[in-house]
């Protein structure tokens, strides 16, 4: 079965063609700023991007009608359950008229539906595990003061596809019959417990948890309040200091773990910073093992930093006693979308229905 995957970013659109589980072709279609600037709204860019995708199909000698499905990245949808959704009128309506956050990913399903309409046969458009997936337990939403609620924002898409992979390949059981702690180590770090497939807690990478290569993670609250009221920073400056210019880059001047390891050959301080990052990641994994009451089939480490055996070892030495540790380096973002569609097409999973009532919003 042929699946086209559409994953729009702010200045490019990543596309891929899958034949069942195999990726036949992938490309990053970049859109020059001059071109994008011509459009007033994000949604106005849809035709430009669609043309680029059609060119990509042509280059690969695949016609629209040869596609069995389109797998689109989920946009900033309302909070919903994890899984694969059939893009429908309600979803298109929401993305076009009710989206609260303008984000390039909102284009994916809209473009997918536009293309599907042009085919001479019905082509389903699927969206899998959008960033707005929220399955958090009420007890995990409590922060520590009434004004603030812990938010469920995570690298859910990669975490789930990696979890499903490890469940099938290593544990030989369906993902939703396992318990795992999955740590996604990218520019931001998400660590979450999955109980029978459901992510009932997670650190919001901008707000909590370990520091990453460019984010500070959680910070001592008393100190943060003092700085916020000091008059030395605007709100945006302070946020950028901690999210984007925090963590490894603040301590060492690089947001590249490989570069940091190079520095560590001469500078023991650099090694200590790397170890501190691993230490905090291990702590967050420990916390999430407790959230699962210790009933953890395995711990999975994924994302870019999982490429470093040495770094993974630093984490593993602290959490190896809680459960087996598997690594899936890198990010399976295109697979996540293609495989999600495929699970529905092969009858492994039923597609979920997206519903939205505009009455609920203003």
């Amino acid at each position, binding site marked *: 079965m042929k699946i086209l995957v559409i994953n729009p970013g702010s200045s490019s659109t990543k596309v891929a063609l899958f034949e069942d589980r195999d990726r036949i072709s992938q490309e990053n279609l970049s859109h020059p700023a001059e071109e994008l600037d011509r459009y007033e709204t994000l949604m106005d860019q849809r035709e430009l991007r669609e043309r680029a995708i059609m060119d990509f199909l042509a280059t690969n000698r695949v016609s629209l009608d040869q596609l069995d499905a389109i797998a689109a990245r989920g946009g900033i949808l309302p909070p919903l359950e994890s899984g694969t959704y059939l893009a429908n009128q309600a979803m298109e309506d929401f993305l076009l008229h009710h989206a609260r956050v303008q984000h390039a990913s909102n284009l994916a399903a809209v473009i997918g539906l536009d293309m599907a309409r042009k085919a001479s046969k019905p082509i389903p458009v699927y969206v899998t595990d959008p960033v707005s997936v929220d399955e958090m337990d009420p007890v995990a939403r409590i922060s520590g003061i009434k004004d603030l609620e812990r938010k469920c924002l995570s690298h859910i898409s990669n975490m789930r596809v990696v979890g499903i992979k490890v469940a099938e390949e290593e544990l030989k059981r369906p993902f939703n019959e396992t318990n795992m702690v999955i740590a996604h180590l990218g520019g931001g770090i998400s660590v979450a417990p999955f109980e029978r497939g459901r992510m009932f807690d997670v650190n919001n990478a901008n707000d909590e948890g370990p520091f990453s290569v460019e984010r500070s993670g959680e910070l001592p609250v008393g100190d943060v309040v003092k700085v916020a009221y000091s008059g030395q920073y605007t709100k945006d400056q302070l946020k950028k200091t901690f999210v984007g210019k925090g963590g490894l880059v603040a301590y060492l001047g690089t947001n590249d773990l490989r570069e940091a390891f190079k520095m560590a050959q001469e500078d023991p301080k650099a090694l200590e910073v790397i170890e501190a990052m691993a230490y905090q990641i291990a702590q967050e994994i420990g916390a999430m093992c407790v959230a699962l009451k*210790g009933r953890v089939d395995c711990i999975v480490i994924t994302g870019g930093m999982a490429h470093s055996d040495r770094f993974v070892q630093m984490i593993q030495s602290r959490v190896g006693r809680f459960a087996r540790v598997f690594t899936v380096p890198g990010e399976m973002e295109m697979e996540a979308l293609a495989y999600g569609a495929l699970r529905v097409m092969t009858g492994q999973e039923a597609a979920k229905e997206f519903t939205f009532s505009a009455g609920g919003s203003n």
Partner: protein
Amino acid sequence: MKILVINPGSTSTKVAVFEDDELLASKTLRHSSEELAPFKRLTDQFAFRTKIIEAFLQEAGVPPEELSAVVGRGGLLDPISSGGTYKVTDDMLEDLMSGKNGEHASNLGALIAYQFTREFGIPSFIVDSVVVDELEPLARYSGHPMFKRRSIFHALNQKATARAAAKELGKAYEDVNLIVVHMGGGISVGAHKRGRVVNVNNALDGDGPFTPERSGTLPLTQLIDLCYSGRYTLDQMKKKIKGQGGMVDYLGTNDGMEVSKRIDQGDQEALLVYRAMAYQTAKWIGKMAAVLSGEVDGIVLTGGLAYDEDRMVPWIREMVEFIAPVLVFPGGDEERALAMGGLRVLRGEETPKIYSEMRIS
């Protein structure tokens, strides 16, 4: 061997006399605000409080000459790199007199204790002051070089309870790894690695679970938004973190018994918040278990909330007992903790430490 213990608070001084590990007499000596009014500075009160303590000794039938040691609560000294029992020394008294690290009633502990050294030649000590800082280097990283994580916790009760737990496990404190959870108005979760607290949340205003009256860790960018929202002054914000946060903010009370009662009556909100406090506390135990690489001999629950055998204790136990057995030492007897610190030195089990050798400048 008789030991006098002095634990000064802002409006009272708790005193006790121990004969070895047995309590002979104890009293809470209250000081009215009229009595304290004439003293400009806190440290000026020490002669006044000393006199009252001498009267207590007389009443208890213990002449000062019979004392083998006097132990005071440790105050706001410079951070010291190791816990344990310290000899009261001149430089210590100087730092407490000057109030360079802040004025706090506990600063009077060493000052009063030393009076007995001066007058009667009795050795004086302090034990496990709040400034004990045994953090390992990795524990000092916050996530941004602007801030360092600091060691501020219930050192006295954490250490005393850890020793008691080690004893129950049939081992020396220096030979075990423990996670100690002090659950009072603040909650501190400490990783005790062979006798040193190598990591602990800053229960005062830094991080950790929310508590009956403190917020604990808060979502960073949301906290920043709140600070800049114009809704709260700096002082109000500080109170949200310490004093008016946590259970007080959600439920209007810092009283665990009261919350338990509401839960019994079917209050779902109270149940959710109380559960969340247990949940966050348990997660911090998991964090400290990773600090100890999962090699944990025991998890020790202490402080007032550890009396709650109906909910708090079983809730936490259920979540963490896969890590290590859970031992419960409810309450926290500060006077006894101080006395035992003195006794260990008198028995030669521990050599008293010297402030100038351990202070971190």
